[in-house]
């Protein structure tokens, strides 16, 4: 039966080529846009190399202080991470803890030419949590950090800029007036991978001043690697209680009386940031609902368009429907047939959209709008796309199918309009 439907569907598609073209154009265009959005989100939120432990990692990303009148939000401060989060490495549920700064612009001048790089200050543990494939050399260690040794790991693009692509191991580069010895070279990391991204990684100990050591809210992040995802609730609760303990350290208790923040997955951090102005714990379900709502809103116009075209197609086939109804096909059978036809159409459109989407992603990667972007369609993105195409097919197929099934056989046979 299904095979028959598919056959009919194909025949119908080939019969009215203009209509098929319009439908496929709309479907594939819609899917390209949603596919690019999905690939972007996947690149930001899903764990991938070098964050191989990403699936069981929680981050203390965002922190803030609030009081009755003012709120200050930002990232985690080093003092909080160092005194309250780092000791959590001793807990049985925790495998490793690392702290690192946000990337900051560092400037170098090479033969009169200015080179800007993103510099990230990290501890030694960072290199155990992030598993980079070193092209040359290796990471710096916790001891390098403690002794403030001026060593750096650089990415491929930086090696190209400073050393014309020649081996860089053991050579020095000057950034913001500080000279670092290169101990390792790693492949480029896209800027969308917020935790590992940088051009140059140097030990925290080499910071120019130690003002950052006093900050509760600052520009650092901490990652906590759990033994398993089952330990997440316990770790979250622990971080909350440590936020309470850190409260007496607030320098201006009249202005600020609470420390905000917590241990989040990247998606939970996004929910915290986007759904609350005071960095209250956000609900990931709500963020999902918002994202799905946006996608559906975007699909509205293409859907109405497709419904219109489908209805026009039905008129074309009214005699076929009349015959089938006259021979006793039930409304449900007809609805089923038409929905399947429509799903076939959207899947063909989806396949086209996937091809066009690949081209679009490559164009985005090549344009360098997003530094080092490596947007790609992996299995996960592909499955999302399939889901979107199926949803789109059902969404736009049900109403025309219902209309079709209600055609009166006598009228339909005469070829009258509905």
């Amino acid at each position, binding site marked *: 039966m299904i095979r028959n439907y598919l056959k009919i569907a194909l025949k119908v598609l080939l019969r009215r080529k*203009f209509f098929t073209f319009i439908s496929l154009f709309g479907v594939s265009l819609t899917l390209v846009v949603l596919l690019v959005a999905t690939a972007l989100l996947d690149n930001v939120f899903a764990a991938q190399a070098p964050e191989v432990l990403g699936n069981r990692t929680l981050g203390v990303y965002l922190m803030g202080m609030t009081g009755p009148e003012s709120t200050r939000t930002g990232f985690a401060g080093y003092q909080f991470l160092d005194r309250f989060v780092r000791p959590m490495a001793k807990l049985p549920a925790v495998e490793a803890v690392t702290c690192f700064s946000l990337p900051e612009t560092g400037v170098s001048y090479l033969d009169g030419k200015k080179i800007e790089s993103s510099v990230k200050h990290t501890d030694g543990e960072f290199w155990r949590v992030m598993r980079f494939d070193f092209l040359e050399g290796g990471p710096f260690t916790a001891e390098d950090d403690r002794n403030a040794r001026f060593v750096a790991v650089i990415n491929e693009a930086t090696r190209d800029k400073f050393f014309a692509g020649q081996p860089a191991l053991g050579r020095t580069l000057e950034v913001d007036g500080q000279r670092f010895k290169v101990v390792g070279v790693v492949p480029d990391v896209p800027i969308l991978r917020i935790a590992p991204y940088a051009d140059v990684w140097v030990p925290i100990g080499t910071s*120019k001043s130690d*003002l950052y050591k006093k*900050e509760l809210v*600052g520009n650092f992040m901490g990652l906590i690697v759990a033994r398993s995802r089952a330990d997440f609730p316990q770790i979250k609760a622990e971080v909350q209680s440590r936020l309470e303990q850190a409260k007496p350290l607030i320098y201006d208790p009249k202005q600020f009386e609470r420390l905000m923040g917590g241990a989040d997955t990247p998606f939970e951090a996004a929910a915290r940031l986007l759904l609350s102005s005071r960095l209250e714990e956000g609900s990931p379900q709500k963020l999902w609902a918002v994202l799905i709502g946006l996608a559906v809103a975007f699909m509205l116009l293409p859907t109405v368009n497709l419904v219109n075209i489908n209805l026009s197609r039905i008129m074309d086939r009214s005699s076929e429907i009349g015959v089938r109804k006259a021979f006793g096909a039930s409304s449900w059978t007809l609805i089923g047939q038409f929905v399947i036809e429509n799903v076939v159409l959207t899947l063909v459109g989806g396949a086209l959209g996937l091809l066009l989407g690949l081209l679009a992603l490559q164009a985005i990667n090549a344009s360098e709008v997003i530094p080092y972007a490596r947007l790609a369609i992996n299995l996960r993105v592909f499955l999302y796309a399939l889901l979107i195409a199926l949803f789109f097919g059902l969404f736009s197929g049900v109403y025309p199918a219902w209309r079709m099934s209600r055609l009166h056989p006598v009228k339909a046979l005469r070829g009258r*309009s509905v």
Partner: protein
Amino acid sequence: MIRHLFKLVWNRKRTNALIILEIFFSFLVLFVVGTLGLYLWDNVQRPLGFSYERVLVATIDMEQSDDNTFDPAQVATFERLLRETQSLAPVEAAAGAIIVPYSLGGYNGSWKVNGRRVETEFNEVTIGFKETMGLHLLQGRWFQKGDEALPWRPVVLNAALAREVFGETDPIGKRFGDPSKEGTEPERRVVGVVSEFRCNGELSGPGNYTFMFKRVGLGEAAAAGGPGPGSSLSRPPRNLVVKVRPGTPVEFEEQLAKRLQAVAPAWSFVVKPLAQMRESSFRLRLTPLVAGAIVALFLMVMVGLGLIGVLWQNLLQRTREMGLRRAAGASRSSVHAQVLLEQMILTSFGVLLGVVLVAQIPLLDLISFIRPKVFTGGIVLSMLSIYLLAALCALYPSAMASRVQPAEALRYE
């Protein structure tokens, strides 16, 4: 004629309802794109209030993210930086500022002045800022030497803010603050009015702007009496703006960076021409808009093709009707006109729905930054384009319909 057409439209209401819905959604898409486009275009036409040419910006990384401490040692270092910069030969003028044009973010304040609450962006700058940025003073004076010692704090407003707060009266010398908070808040007084300062650049809308005086340049006296943490005057000026003389070579950028680095080894500096910051800020703000516009364009192509298909199919079904009209003596052009007018009626319904929905924005005061002129412009623009799109889509099918031979059409009857 028109009444008759309405009847025809009504007779096919179910099919037409969906076309109206499609036109309604298209109208919304066009409205958003059109209004945003007009808003930006309107902004670009307005005066900027400063000049970005020959200006270098040195962003200072003080290795602290906290904005509430600017301790005496830091003040002293900052003063040394400023003096050092001003002493360089290619430098025409230099100043410190907490915010520079084209940088992301900014400070917004809300004060109660003259009994009403005003929202304003604000900045804290040193004396050289006016000369460096080429501000146009309309009334009063700019900050000057000796202002550190005043018992009150001088502020300079932009013309829009001065008008909002003081109306037609002369703002110079007036208090700028809430009298009821006397004693708890430092007293501010207006000393001057500048024409405009659109800190976020050409693409941003006009708004209120307040310059406050950054107390550096008096050395220890200011530092010793400096306010404590949390006070609004303890924000560190994270930027130096520098106006260079015409013909200064590009290498000066590097010289300046190295000089600053030598004076303050504990801080880091990024020196950039303001023109370059302007370009990257344009790129950052326009890229998503361009991407959105491209998607909207494709959507409209999709809608256009879809409408052609649907109209064509509908007219095929009405072959007999058209044939009858032709047989009864209607000319080709009157059949043409009928199809086009029917399409226009459908479009008008869709547009009407759209306008009713969109009109809620000013009625409910949802988006305040869109000016009435831009708003009506956006509606007119999107109406014009949707009518044009609908007419274009109707042309081909209606030409087909008018070419129907009466004999052929009536054969089936």
